[in-house]
Protein backbone atom coordinates (compact mmCIF):
# COMPACT_ATOMS: atom_id res chain seq x y z
CA UNK A 1 0.00 0.00 0.00
CA UNK A 2 1.26 3.39 -0.91
CA UNK A 3 2.23 5.51 2.05
CA UNK A 4 -0.18 8.27 3.04
CA UNK A 5 -3.25 6.36 2.00
CA UNK A 6 -6.00 5.42 4.40
CA UNK A 7 -5.97 1.76 5.36
CA UNK A 8 -9.28 0.71 3.87
CA UNK A 9 -10.92 -2.64 4.53
CA UNK A 10 -13.36 -2.29 1.67
CA UNK A 11 -13.20 -5.02 -0.96
CA UNK A 12 -14.71 -3.35 -4.04
CA UNK A 13 -11.69 -1.93 -5.91
CA UNK A 14 -13.37 1.28 -7.07
CA UNK A 15 -14.86 2.15 -3.69
CA UNK A 16 -11.60 1.09 -2.08
CA UNK A 17 -9.64 3.47 -4.33
CA UNK A 18 -11.84 6.37 -3.23
CA UNK A 19 -11.87 5.25 0.37
CA UNK A 20 -8.10 5.14 0.58
CA UNK A 21 -8.03 8.79 -0.43
CA UNK A 22 -11.22 10.00 1.19
CA UNK A 23 -12.30 7.54 3.87
CA UNK A 24 -15.99 8.44 3.85
CA UNK A 25 -16.96 4.83 3.35
CA UNK A 26 -14.90 3.72 6.32
CA UNK A 27 -16.48 6.53 8.29
CA UNK A 28 -20.00 5.54 7.27
CA UNK A 29 -19.29 1.95 8.19
CA UNK A 30 -17.91 2.98 11.54
CA UNK A 31 -20.62 5.50 12.38
CA UNK A 32 -23.65 3.82 10.86
CA UNK A 33 -22.60 0.24 10.25
CA UNK A 34 -20.80 -1.19 13.23
CA UNK A 35 -21.45 1.73 15.58
CA UNK A 36 -22.22 0.04 18.91
CA UNK A 37 -25.65 1.18 20.04
CA UNK A 38 -27.46 0.28 23.23
CA UNK A 39 -29.69 -2.67 22.51
CA UNK A 40 -32.65 -1.46 24.51
CA UNK A 41 -33.91 1.60 22.61
CA UNK A 42 -37.65 2.03 22.55
CA UNK A 43 -39.52 3.77 19.75
CA UNK A 44 -38.87 7.19 21.29
CA UNK A 45 -35.39 6.81 19.83
CA UNK A 46 -36.91 6.96 16.35
CA UNK A 47 -37.54 10.64 16.59
CA UNK A 48 -33.97 11.76 15.95
CA UNK A 49 -33.83 10.05 12.55
CA UNK A 50 -37.38 11.24 11.88
CA UNK A 51 -36.24 14.82 12.44
CA UNK A 52 -33.41 14.33 9.96
CA UNK A 53 -35.83 12.90 7.39
CA UNK A 54 -38.16 15.85 7.91
CA UNK A 55 -35.32 18.32 7.44
CA UNK A 56 -34.47 16.63 4.15
CA UNK A 57 -38.12 16.73 3.05
CA UNK A 58 -38.36 20.40 3.97
CA UNK A 59 -35.20 21.38 2.10
CA UNK A 60 -36.20 19.38 -1.00
CA UNK A 61 -39.73 20.74 -1.20
CA UNK A 62 -38.50 24.21 -0.30
CA UNK A 63 -36.01 24.33 -3.13
CA UNK A 64 -38.70 23.38 -5.64
CA UNK A 65 -41.16 25.88 -4.18
CA UNK A 66 -38.57 28.62 -4.45
CA UNK A 67 -38.37 27.91 -8.18
CA UNK A 68 -41.94 29.17 -8.51
CA UNK A 69 -42.32 31.61 -5.64
CA UNK A 70 -42.08 35.38 -6.11
CA UNK A 71 -40.90 37.34 -3.09
CA UNK A 72 -42.74 40.57 -3.76
CA UNK A 73 -45.65 41.96 -1.80
CA UNK A 74 -47.75 42.40 -4.92
CA UNK A 75 -47.13 38.89 -6.22
CA UNK A 76 -46.29 36.60 -3.30
CA UNK A 77 -49.87 35.57 -2.52
CA UNK A 78 -50.72 35.00 -6.17
CA UNK A 79 -47.52 33.10 -6.84
CA UNK A 80 -48.35 30.70 -4.02
CA UNK A 81 -51.83 30.16 -5.45
CA UNK A 82 -50.28 29.69 -8.88
CA UNK A 83 -48.13 26.95 -7.39
CA UNK A 84 -51.33 25.39 -6.01
CA UNK A 85 -53.21 25.62 -9.29
CA UNK A 86 -50.93 25.67 -12.29
CA UNK A 87 -47.55 24.20 -11.41
CA UNK A 88 -47.47 20.43 -11.96
CA UNK A 89 -47.86 18.80 -8.53
CA UNK A 90 -47.34 22.25 -7.05
CA UNK A 91 -50.17 21.68 -4.59
CA UNK A 92 -48.46 18.51 -3.39
CA UNK A 93 -45.08 20.13 -2.91
CA UNK A 94 -46.57 23.12 -1.17
CA UNK A 95 -48.83 21.14 1.15
CA UNK A 96 -45.95 18.84 2.08
CA UNK A 97 -43.80 21.86 2.89
CA UNK A 98 -46.56 23.63 4.79
CA UNK A 99 -47.54 20.60 6.87
CA UNK A 100 -43.92 19.51 7.06
CA UNK A 101 -43.26 22.47 9.32
CA UNK A 102 -45.88 21.19 11.74
CA UNK A 103 -44.60 17.63 11.49
CA UNK A 104 -41.08 18.88 12.15
CA UNK A 105 -42.18 20.51 15.38
CA UNK A 106 -44.20 17.49 16.48
CA UNK A 107 -41.17 15.27 15.92
CA UNK A 108 -38.73 17.61 17.61
CA UNK A 109 -41.01 18.25 20.59
CA UNK A 110 -41.31 14.50 21.16
CA UNK A 111 -37.55 14.22 20.70
CA UNK A 112 -37.05 16.90 23.38
CA UNK A 113 -39.55 15.18 25.64
CA UNK A 114 -37.62 11.96 25.31
CA UNK A 115 -34.47 13.78 26.40
CA UNK A 116 -36.21 15.23 29.42
CA UNK A 117 -37.68 11.90 30.44
CA UNK A 118 -34.55 9.80 30.06
CA UNK A 119 -32.13 12.50 31.20
CA UNK A 120 -30.17 12.47 27.97
CA UNK A 121 -29.02 16.04 28.59
CA UNK A 122 -26.85 14.99 31.53
CA UNK A 123 -23.11 14.53 31.58
CA UNK A 124 -21.39 13.68 29.31
CA UNK A 125 -24.02 14.77 26.75
CA UNK A 126 -24.44 18.43 27.78
CA UNK A 127 -23.06 19.84 24.53
CA UNK A 128 -25.18 17.44 22.50
CA UNK A 129 -28.22 18.84 24.31
CA UNK A 130 -27.12 22.46 23.87
CA UNK A 131 -26.66 21.97 20.13
CA UNK A 132 -30.16 20.49 20.07
CA UNK A 133 -31.59 23.60 21.71
CA UNK A 134 -29.73 25.70 19.13
CA UNK A 135 -31.41 23.66 16.38
CA UNK A 136 -34.78 24.22 18.04
CA UNK A 137 -34.20 27.98 18.10
CA UNK A 138 -33.11 28.01 14.45
CA UNK A 139 -36.18 25.99 13.55
CA UNK A 140 -38.45 28.51 15.19
CA UNK A 141 -36.78 31.39 13.36
CA UNK A 142 -37.04 29.52 10.06
CA UNK A 143 -40.66 28.55 10.58
CA UNK A 144 -41.61 32.08 11.53
CA UNK A 145 -40.04 33.57 8.43
CA UNK A 146 -41.48 30.86 6.23
CA UNK A 147 -44.95 31.60 7.48
CA UNK A 148 -44.57 35.20 6.32
CA UNK A 149 -43.85 34.22 2.71
CA UNK A 150 -47.40 33.44 1.45
CA UNK A 151 -48.22 37.02 2.41
CA UNK A 152 -51.67 36.35 3.79
CA UNK A 153 -53.23 38.23 6.64
CA UNK A 154 -51.68 36.01 9.34
CA UNK A 155 -48.31 36.21 7.60
CA UNK A 156 -48.38 39.96 7.68
CA UNK A 157 -49.73 40.43 11.17
CA UNK A 158 -47.67 37.64 12.63
CA UNK A 159 -44.58 39.30 11.21
CA UNK A 160 -45.69 42.65 12.56
CA UNK A 161 -46.35 41.36 16.07
CA UNK A 162 -43.23 39.22 16.36
CA UNK A 163 -40.85 41.81 14.99
CA UNK A 164 -42.41 44.35 17.34
CA UNK A 165 -41.26 42.18 20.24
CA UNK A 166 -37.82 43.63 19.72
CA UNK A 167 -39.13 47.13 20.33
CA UNK A 168 -39.31 46.12 24.00
CA UNK A 169 -35.53 46.37 24.23
CA UNK A 170 -34.73 49.60 26.09
CA UNK A 171 -33.17 52.50 24.18
CA UNK A 172 -32.35 50.75 20.91
CA UNK A 173 -35.56 48.72 20.51
CA UNK A 174 -37.19 50.89 17.88
CA UNK A 175 -34.01 51.22 15.85
CA UNK A 176 -33.66 47.45 15.86
CA UNK A 177 -37.21 47.00 14.62
CA UNK A 178 -36.63 49.50 11.82
CA UNK A 179 -33.51 47.59 10.91
CA UNK A 180 -35.41 44.28 10.85
CA UNK A 181 -38.12 45.74 8.66
CA UNK A 182 -35.87 47.73 6.35
CA UNK A 183 -38.51 50.43 6.54
CA UNK A 184 -41.19 51.79 8.77
CA UNK A 185 -43.53 48.84 8.60
CA UNK A 186 -43.46 45.23 7.49
CA UNK A 187 -43.25 45.64 3.73
CA UNK A 188 -41.48 44.49 0.62
CA UNK A 189 -37.93 44.79 2.00
CA UNK A 190 -39.01 42.69 4.97
CA UNK A 191 -40.54 40.03 2.75
CA UNK A 192 -37.40 39.88 0.61
CA UNK A 193 -34.99 39.48 3.50
CA UNK A 194 -37.24 36.92 5.17
CA UNK A 195 -37.23 34.89 1.99
CA UNK A 196 -33.47 35.10 1.77
CA UNK A 197 -33.01 34.05 5.40
CA UNK A 198 -35.70 31.39 5.18
CA UNK A 199 -33.72 29.82 2.36
CA UNK A 200 -30.42 30.15 4.23
CA UNK A 201 -31.32 28.96 7.73
CA UNK A 202 -32.21 25.35 6.88
CA UNK A 203 -28.67 24.85 5.67
CA UNK A 204 -27.39 26.33 8.91
CA UNK A 205 -29.69 23.87 10.69
CA UNK A 206 -28.23 21.05 8.61
CA UNK A 207 -24.76 22.16 9.72
CA UNK A 208 -25.71 22.18 13.39
CA UNK A 209 -27.42 18.81 12.94
CA UNK A 210 -24.11 17.48 11.67
CA UNK A 211 -22.38 18.76 14.81
CA UNK A 212 -25.21 17.38 16.93
CA UNK A 213 -24.73 13.92 15.46
CA UNK A 214 -20.93 14.17 15.60
CA UNK A 215 -21.24 14.93 19.31
CA UNK A 216 -23.63 12.02 19.72
CA UNK A 217 -21.15 9.66 18.16
CA UNK A 218 -18.44 10.70 20.62
CA UNK A 219 -20.51 10.03 23.73
CA UNK A 220 -22.74 7.33 22.27
CA UNK A 221 -26.48 7.25 22.76
CA UNK A 222 -28.31 7.32 26.03
CA UNK A 223 -30.98 4.63 26.48
CA UNK A 224 -34.22 4.12 28.41
CA UNK A 225 -32.34 2.87 31.46
CA UNK A 226 -30.00 5.83 31.51
CA UNK A 227 -26.98 3.64 32.33
CA UNK A 228 -23.94 3.34 30.09
CA UNK A 229 -23.35 0.10 28.18
CA UNK A 230 -20.74 -1.97 29.99
CA UNK A 231 -19.61 -4.20 27.16
CA UNK A 232 -20.51 -5.78 23.84
CA UNK A 233 -23.38 -7.71 25.39
CA UNK A 234 -25.14 -4.41 26.02
CA UNK A 235 -25.00 -3.13 22.45
CA UNK A 236 -25.88 -4.08 18.90
CA UNK A 237 -24.34 -2.70 15.72
CA UNK A 238 -26.37 0.21 14.40
CA UNK A 239 -26.85 -1.59 11.10
CA UNK A 240 -28.96 -3.61 10.54
CA UNK A 241 -30.67 -3.45 13.92
CA UNK A 242 -31.47 0.22 14.19
CA UNK A 243 -31.59 0.94 10.48
CA UNK A 244 -34.42 -1.63 10.41
CA UNK A 245 -36.13 -0.29 13.49
CA UNK A 246 -35.85 3.31 12.29
CA UNK A 247 -37.28 2.30 8.91
CA UNK A 248 -40.42 1.02 10.62
CA UNK A 249 -40.75 4.33 12.43
CA UNK A 250 -40.19 6.29 9.25
CA UNK A 251 -42.97 4.46 7.40
CA UNK A 252 -45.43 4.96 10.25
CA UNK A 253 -44.41 8.60 10.32
CA UNK A 254 -44.95 8.99 6.57
CA UNK A 255 -48.44 7.53 6.93
CA UNK A 256 -49.36 10.11 9.58
CA UNK A 257 -47.77 12.81 7.43
CA UNK A 258 -49.76 11.64 4.38
CA UNK A 259 -53.07 11.71 6.22
CA UNK A 260 -52.42 15.34 7.05
CA UNK A 261 -51.23 16.34 3.58
CA UNK A 262 -53.81 14.51 1.51
CA UNK A 263 -56.94 14.71 3.61
CA UNK A 264 -56.73 17.73 5.89
CA UNK A 265 -53.97 19.89 4.46
CA UNK A 266 -55.28 23.11 5.97
CA UNK A 267 -56.27 21.71 9.35
CA UNK A 268 -53.26 23.13 11.17
CA UNK A 269 -53.25 26.40 9.27
CA UNK A 270 -55.38 29.44 9.77
CA UNK A 271 -58.14 30.44 7.35
CA UNK A 272 -57.14 34.10 7.55
CA UNK A 273 -53.92 33.30 5.77
CA UNK A 274 -55.91 32.76 2.58
CA UNK A 275 -56.88 36.42 2.69
CA UNK A 276 -54.17 38.51 1.02
CA UNK A 277 -52.22 40.70 3.44
CA UNK A 278 -53.87 44.02 4.17
CA UNK A 279 -51.80 46.49 6.21
CA UNK A 280 -54.94 48.47 7.07
CA UNK A 281 -57.00 45.72 8.69
CA UNK A 282 -55.87 43.50 11.56
CA UNK A 283 -57.74 40.18 11.87
CA UNK A 284 -59.88 40.03 15.02
CA UNK A 285 -57.84 37.21 16.56
CA UNK A 286 -54.18 36.94 15.81
CA UNK A 287 -53.00 33.45 16.62
CA UNK A 288 -49.53 32.20 15.82
CA UNK A 289 -48.96 28.74 14.39
CA UNK A 290 -49.66 26.05 16.97
CA UNK A 291 -46.02 25.34 17.72
CA UNK A 292 -45.51 28.88 18.97
CA UNK A 293 -48.59 28.88 21.18
CA UNK A 294 -46.90 27.84 24.48
CA UNK A 295 -44.31 30.57 24.11
CA UNK A 296 -46.95 33.04 22.98
CA UNK A 297 -48.89 32.22 26.15
CA UNK A 298 -45.81 32.96 28.26
CA UNK A 299 -45.37 36.27 26.46
CA UNK A 300 -48.93 37.31 27.16
CA UNK A 301 -48.90 36.08 30.75
CA UNK A 302 -46.72 39.01 31.77
CA UNK A 303 -48.39 42.41 31.95
CA UNK A 304 -45.11 44.18 31.21
CA UNK A 305 -43.93 44.34 27.58
CA UNK A 306 -40.22 43.91 28.25
CA UNK A 307 -40.92 41.39 31.00
CA UNK A 308 -43.05 39.27 28.67
CA UNK A 309 -40.43 39.26 25.94
CA UNK A 310 -37.66 38.39 28.40
CA UNK A 311 -39.68 35.58 29.93
CA UNK A 312 -40.53 34.17 26.52
CA UNK A 313 -36.90 34.03 25.48
CA UNK A 314 -36.11 32.83 28.99
CA UNK A 315 -38.31 29.80 28.40
CA UNK A 316 -35.78 28.66 25.80
CA UNK A 317 -32.73 30.05 27.57
CA UNK A 318 -33.44 27.96 30.64
CA UNK A 319 -33.07 24.85 28.50
CA UNK A 320 -29.44 25.76 27.80
CA UNK A 321 -28.53 25.51 31.48
CA UNK A 322 -30.72 22.52 32.24
CA UNK A 323 -27.76 20.09 32.53
CA UNK A 324 -26.48 22.17 35.43
CA UNK A 325 -29.84 22.64 37.11
CA UNK A 326 -30.60 18.96 37.36
CA UNK A 327 -27.71 17.58 39.42
CA UNK A 328 -29.19 14.17 40.11
CA UNK A 329 -26.77 11.48 38.97
CA UNK A 330 -29.63 9.30 37.80
CA UNK A 331 -30.66 9.96 34.21
CA UNK A 332 -33.78 7.98 33.51
CA UNK A 333 -36.98 9.13 35.18
CA UNK A 334 -37.81 5.47 35.49
CA UNK A 335 -35.62 5.40 38.57
CA UNK A 336 -36.68 8.79 39.92
CA UNK A 337 -40.02 8.18 41.65
CA UNK A 338 -40.71 11.82 42.54
CA UNK A 339 -39.15 13.76 39.68
CA UNK A 340 -41.06 11.57 37.22
CA UNK A 341 -44.40 12.92 38.36
CA UNK A 342 -43.21 16.50 38.30
CA UNK A 343 -41.99 15.98 34.74
CA UNK A 344 -45.25 14.41 33.62
CA UNK A 345 -47.04 17.37 35.13
CA UNK A 346 -44.66 19.63 33.24
CA UNK A 347 -45.68 17.86 30.04
CA UNK A 348 -49.37 18.36 30.74
CA UNK A 349 -48.60 21.94 31.67
CA UNK A 350 -46.98 22.46 28.26
CA UNK A 351 -50.28 21.55 26.59
CA UNK A 352 -52.15 23.86 28.96
CA UNK A 353 -49.83 26.67 27.88
CA UNK A 354 -50.49 25.79 24.25
CA UNK A 355 -54.21 25.93 24.86
CA UNK A 356 -54.14 29.28 26.68
CA UNK A 357 -51.97 30.64 23.86
CA UNK A 358 -54.84 30.01 21.47
CA UNK A 359 -57.41 31.62 23.77
CA UNK A 360 -58.08 35.34 23.99
CA UNK A 361 -55.83 37.05 26.53
CA UNK A 362 -58.54 37.91 28.99
CA UNK A 363 -60.32 36.71 32.14
CA UNK A 364 -59.61 33.25 33.41
CA UNK A 365 -57.23 32.44 30.57
CA UNK A 366 -54.71 34.99 31.83
CA UNK A 367 -54.78 33.46 35.29
CA UNK A 368 -54.30 29.96 33.93
CA UNK A 369 -51.50 31.15 31.64
CA UNK A 370 -49.74 32.76 34.59
CA UNK A 371 -49.96 29.65 36.75
CA UNK A 372 -48.73 27.51 33.87
CA UNK A 373 -45.88 29.88 33.16
CA UNK A 374 -44.90 29.80 36.81
CA UNK A 375 -44.82 26.00 36.79
CA UNK A 376 -42.89 25.88 33.50
CA UNK A 377 -40.05 27.77 35.12
CA UNK A 378 -40.44 26.35 38.62
CA UNK A 379 -39.84 22.86 37.32
CA UNK A 380 -36.43 23.81 35.95
CA UNK A 381 -35.33 26.42 38.46
CA UNK A 382 -36.72 25.10 41.75
CA UNK A 383 -38.02 21.55 41.56
CA UNK A 384 -35.17 19.88 39.69
CA UNK A 385 -32.34 21.48 41.74
CA UNK A 386 -34.20 20.65 44.94
CA UNK A 387 -35.02 17.08 43.97
CA UNK A 388 -31.37 16.53 43.03
CA UNK A 389 -30.69 16.86 46.74
CA UNK A 390 -33.67 15.26 48.43
CA UNK A 391 -34.89 12.53 46.08
CA UNK A 392 -33.84 8.92 46.70
CA UNK A 393 -33.63 7.19 43.35
CA UNK A 394 -34.56 3.54 42.88
CA UNK A 395 -31.66 1.09 42.54
CA UNK A 396 -30.20 1.08 39.04
CA UNK A 397 -29.80 -2.21 37.16
CA UNK A 398 -26.30 -3.60 36.92
CA UNK A 399 -26.20 -3.50 33.15
CA UNK A 400 -28.45 -3.16 30.14
CA UNK A 401 -28.33 -6.85 29.28
CA UNK A 402 -29.18 -7.82 32.87
CA UNK A 403 -32.11 -5.42 32.94
CA UNK A 404 -33.29 -6.66 29.61
CA UNK A 405 -33.37 -10.17 30.96
CA UNK A 406 -35.00 -9.34 34.24
CA UNK A 407 -37.33 -6.66 32.99
CA UNK A 408 -38.65 -8.43 29.96
CA UNK A 409 -38.15 -12.02 31.01
CA UNK A 410 -38.65 -13.06 27.42
CA UNK A 411 -35.26 -12.56 25.95
CA UNK A 412 -33.70 -15.59 24.36
CA UNK A 413 -30.27 -16.37 23.16
CA UNK A 414 -29.03 -15.43 19.76
CA UNK A 415 -29.70 -18.91 18.44
CA UNK A 416 -33.21 -18.64 19.76
CA UNK A 417 -35.70 -21.13 18.57
CA UNK A 418 -38.65 -19.72 20.42
CA UNK A 419 -40.60 -16.95 18.87
CA UNK A 420 -39.22 -13.68 20.14
CA UNK A 421 -41.64 -11.32 21.76
CA UNK A 422 -41.99 -8.06 20.09
CA UNK A 423 -43.66 -5.17 21.75
CA UNK A 424 -43.38 -1.63 20.66
Amino acid sequence: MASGLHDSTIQNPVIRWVDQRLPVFTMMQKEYGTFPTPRNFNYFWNFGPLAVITLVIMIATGIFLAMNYTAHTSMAFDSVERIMRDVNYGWLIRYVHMNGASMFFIVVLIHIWRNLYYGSYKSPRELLWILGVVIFLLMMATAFMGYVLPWGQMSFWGATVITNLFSAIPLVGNSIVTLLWGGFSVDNPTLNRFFSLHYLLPFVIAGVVFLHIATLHITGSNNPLGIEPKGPQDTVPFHPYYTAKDSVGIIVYLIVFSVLVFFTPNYLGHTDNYIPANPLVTPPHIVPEWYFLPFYAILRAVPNKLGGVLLMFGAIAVLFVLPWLDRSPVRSMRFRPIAKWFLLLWGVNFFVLMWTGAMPAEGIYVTIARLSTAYYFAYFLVILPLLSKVERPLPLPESISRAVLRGGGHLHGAAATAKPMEKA
Partner: protein
Amino acid sequence: MADTLAPASSPDLGNAHGPEQGTKRDFLKLVTGSFAVVGVGAIAWPFIASMNPAKDVLALASTDVTLDHIAEGQAVTVMWRGKPVFVRHRTAAEIEEAQKVPLGELRDPAPDQSRVQREPWLVVVGVCTHLGCVPLGQKPTDPRGDFGGWFCPCHGSHYDTAGRIRRGPAPSNLAVPEYAFRSDTQIRIG
Protein backbone atom coordinates in the same frame (compact mmCIF):
# COMPACT_ATOMS: atom_id res chain seq x y z
CA MET B 1 -27.65 -14.34 31.74
CA ALA B 2 -25.61 -12.18 29.56
CA ASP B 3 -23.50 -15.05 28.31
CA THR B 4 -26.42 -16.48 26.37
CA LEU B 5 -26.52 -13.40 24.21
CA ALA B 6 -24.76 -13.09 20.94
CA PRO B 7 -21.71 -10.87 20.93
CA ALA B 8 -23.90 -8.44 19.12
CA SER B 9 -21.45 -5.67 18.52
CA SER B 10 -19.22 -7.92 16.53
CA PRO B 11 -18.48 -6.53 13.07
CA ASP B 12 -20.59 -9.30 11.59
CA LEU B 13 -23.30 -7.39 9.78
CA GLY B 14 -26.05 -9.89 9.59
CA ASN B 15 -24.81 -13.12 8.09
CA ALA B 16 -25.24 -15.14 11.26
CA HIS B 17 -28.24 -17.13 10.23
CA GLY B 18 -28.89 -20.60 8.94
CA PRO B 19 -29.45 -21.18 5.24
CA GLU B 20 -33.17 -21.93 5.60
CA GLN B 21 -33.91 -18.85 7.64
CA GLY B 22 -31.69 -16.88 5.30
CA THR B 23 -33.64 -17.66 2.13
CA LYS B 24 -36.89 -16.58 3.66
CA ARG B 25 -35.45 -13.40 5.05
CA ASP B 26 -33.57 -12.58 1.89
CA PHE B 27 -36.76 -12.87 -0.12
CA LEU B 28 -38.56 -10.66 2.37
CA LYS B 29 -35.73 -8.15 2.22
CA LEU B 30 -35.81 -8.21 -1.56
CA VAL B 31 -39.54 -7.50 -1.69
CA THR B 32 -39.26 -4.77 0.92
CA GLY B 33 -36.29 -3.27 -0.84
CA SER B 34 -38.10 -3.25 -4.18
CA PHE B 35 -41.09 -1.57 -2.60
CA ALA B 36 -38.86 1.05 -1.06
CA VAL B 37 -37.12 1.69 -4.37
CA VAL B 38 -40.48 2.10 -6.12
CA GLY B 39 -41.52 4.51 -3.37
CA VAL B 40 -38.41 6.64 -3.68
CA GLY B 41 -38.79 6.70 -7.47
CA ALA B 42 -42.39 7.80 -7.12
CA ILE B 43 -41.31 10.60 -4.80
CA ALA B 44 -38.88 11.92 -7.39
CA TRP B 45 -41.51 12.24 -10.10
CA PRO B 46 -43.56 15.19 -8.76
CA PHE B 47 -40.37 17.18 -8.28
CA ILE B 48 -39.24 16.57 -11.85
CA ALA B 49 -42.72 17.21 -13.25
CA SER B 50 -42.94 20.49 -11.35
CA MET B 51 -40.09 21.83 -13.45
CA ASN B 52 -41.98 21.26 -16.69
CA PRO B 53 -44.12 24.14 -18.01
CA ALA B 54 -47.02 24.87 -15.68
CA LYS B 55 -50.61 24.82 -16.90
CA ASP B 56 -50.81 28.59 -17.25
CA VAL B 57 -47.64 28.59 -19.32
CA LEU B 58 -49.01 25.89 -21.61
CA ALA B 59 -52.26 27.81 -21.99
CA LEU B 60 -50.44 31.03 -22.65
CA ALA B 61 -52.38 33.44 -24.79
CA SER B 62 -51.94 33.41 -28.51
CA THR B 63 -50.75 36.56 -30.19
CA ASP B 64 -52.75 38.53 -32.77
CA VAL B 65 -50.90 40.44 -35.45
CA THR B 66 -52.52 43.10 -37.62
CA LEU B 67 -51.06 43.02 -41.13
CA ASP B 68 -52.48 46.09 -42.84
CA HIS B 69 -49.74 48.45 -41.73
CA ILE B 70 -46.86 46.24 -42.84
CA ALA B 71 -45.79 47.57 -46.22
CA GLU B 72 -44.39 45.29 -48.88
CA GLY B 73 -40.75 44.52 -48.16
CA GLN B 74 -41.12 45.32 -44.48
CA ALA B 75 -41.31 43.08 -41.48
CA VAL B 76 -42.48 43.24 -37.89
CA THR B 77 -41.35 41.31 -34.85
CA VAL B 78 -43.94 40.19 -32.32
CA MET B 79 -43.55 38.33 -29.06
CA TRP B 80 -45.04 34.86 -28.76
CA ARG B 81 -44.28 32.49 -25.88
CA GLY B 82 -41.41 34.70 -24.89
CA LYS B 83 -39.80 34.40 -28.32
CA PRO B 84 -39.67 36.78 -31.27
CA VAL B 85 -41.78 35.88 -34.30
CA PHE B 86 -40.91 37.47 -37.63
CA VAL B 87 -43.81 38.46 -39.85
CA ARG B 88 -42.52 39.54 -43.23
CA HIS B 89 -44.45 41.01 -46.13
CA ARG B 90 -42.44 39.67 -49.04
CA THR B 91 -42.00 41.44 -52.36
CA ALA B 92 -42.76 39.64 -55.59
CA ALA B 93 -39.03 39.35 -56.28
CA GLU B 94 -38.40 37.75 -52.91
CA ILE B 95 -41.22 35.26 -53.45
CA GLU B 96 -39.89 34.35 -56.85
CA GLU B 97 -36.39 33.90 -55.50
CA ALA B 98 -37.65 31.67 -52.75
CA GLN B 99 -39.68 29.55 -55.18
CA LYS B 100 -37.09 29.02 -57.86
CA VAL B 101 -34.37 27.54 -55.61
CA PRO B 102 -33.90 23.86 -56.50
CA LEU B 103 -34.65 21.75 -53.45
CA GLY B 104 -31.43 19.84 -53.92
CA GLU B 105 -29.41 22.90 -53.01
CA LEU B 106 -31.02 23.16 -49.62
CA ARG B 107 -29.60 21.79 -46.41
CA ASP B 108 -33.10 21.31 -44.98
CA PRO B 109 -35.18 20.88 -48.13
CA ALA B 110 -38.64 22.42 -47.99
CA PRO B 111 -40.53 24.02 -50.88
CA ASP B 112 -41.61 27.61 -50.38
CA GLN B 113 -45.28 26.59 -50.43
CA SER B 114 -44.78 24.46 -47.33
CA ARG B 115 -43.39 27.48 -45.47
CA VAL B 116 -46.23 29.93 -46.04
CA GLN B 117 -50.03 29.92 -45.98
CA ARG B 118 -50.36 32.96 -48.25
CA GLU B 119 -47.46 33.79 -50.49
CA PRO B 120 -46.76 37.39 -49.43
CA TRP B 121 -46.72 36.55 -45.73
CA LEU B 122 -43.84 34.67 -44.21
CA VAL B 123 -44.23 33.89 -40.49
CA VAL B 124 -41.26 32.28 -38.75
CA VAL B 125 -39.94 32.01 -35.24
CA GLY B 126 -37.03 34.43 -35.10
CA VAL B 127 -34.65 32.14 -33.30
CA CYS B 128 -31.57 30.82 -35.09
CA THR B 129 -31.66 27.04 -35.13
CA HIS B 130 -27.96 26.93 -34.35
CA LEU B 131 -27.74 28.19 -30.76
CA GLY B 132 -30.75 30.41 -30.27
CA CYS B 133 -29.65 33.94 -31.18
CA VAL B 134 -32.06 36.30 -32.92
CA PRO B 135 -30.97 36.78 -36.56
CA LEU B 136 -30.70 40.25 -38.10
CA GLY B 137 -32.77 41.33 -41.09
CA GLN B 138 -35.94 42.81 -39.65
CA LYS B 139 -34.93 46.44 -39.82
CA PRO B 140 -34.29 47.93 -43.25
CA THR B 141 -30.78 48.85 -42.14
CA ASP B 142 -29.93 45.33 -40.98
CA PRO B 143 -27.70 43.03 -42.99
CA ARG B 144 -29.86 40.33 -44.53
CA GLY B 145 -27.14 37.88 -45.40
CA ASP B 146 -26.19 36.54 -48.79
CA PHE B 147 -29.66 35.25 -49.60
CA GLY B 148 -31.82 38.26 -48.76
CA GLY B 149 -33.46 36.75 -45.73
CA TRP B 150 -31.81 36.90 -42.36
CA PHE B 151 -28.27 36.79 -41.08
CA CYS B 152 -27.38 35.51 -37.64
CA PRO B 153 -24.48 37.57 -36.26
CA CYS B 154 -23.53 35.06 -33.57
CA HIS B 155 -22.03 32.38 -35.81
CA GLY B 156 -22.80 33.57 -39.33
CA SER B 157 -25.83 31.58 -40.47
CA HIS B 158 -27.56 32.87 -43.61
CA TYR B 159 -31.28 32.38 -44.19
CA ASP B 160 -33.15 33.02 -47.43
CA THR B 161 -36.45 34.78 -48.12
CA ALA B 162 -38.37 31.68 -47.03
CA GLY B 163 -36.46 31.48 -43.75
CA ARG B 164 -34.51 28.45 -44.95
CA ILE B 165 -30.93 27.84 -43.87
CA ARG B 166 -28.53 28.33 -46.78
CA ARG B 167 -25.08 28.80 -45.29
CA GLY B 168 -23.43 28.67 -41.88
CA PRO B 169 -23.60 26.30 -38.93
CA ALA B 170 -27.36 26.21 -38.33
CA PRO B 171 -28.76 22.74 -39.03
CA SER B 172 -32.34 23.56 -40.05
CA ASN B 173 -34.74 26.19 -41.29
CA LEU B 174 -36.33 28.82 -39.07
CA ALA B 175 -39.36 27.19 -37.49
CA VAL B 176 -42.84 28.08 -38.71
CA PRO B 177 -45.17 28.54 -35.73
CA GLU B 178 -48.76 27.41 -35.72
CA TYR B 179 -50.84 30.32 -36.96
CA ALA B 180 -54.05 31.07 -38.82
CA PHE B 181 -55.46 33.92 -40.87
CA ARG B 182 -58.38 35.36 -38.92
CA SER B 183 -59.10 37.74 -41.81
CA ASP B 184 -57.16 39.20 -44.71
CA THR B 185 -55.50 41.65 -42.38
CA GLN B 186 -55.03 39.68 -39.21
CA ILE B 187 -53.30 36.48 -38.15
CA ARG B 188 -53.32 34.70 -34.81
CA ILE B 189 -50.15 32.93 -33.80
CA GLY B 190 -50.53 29.96 -31.47
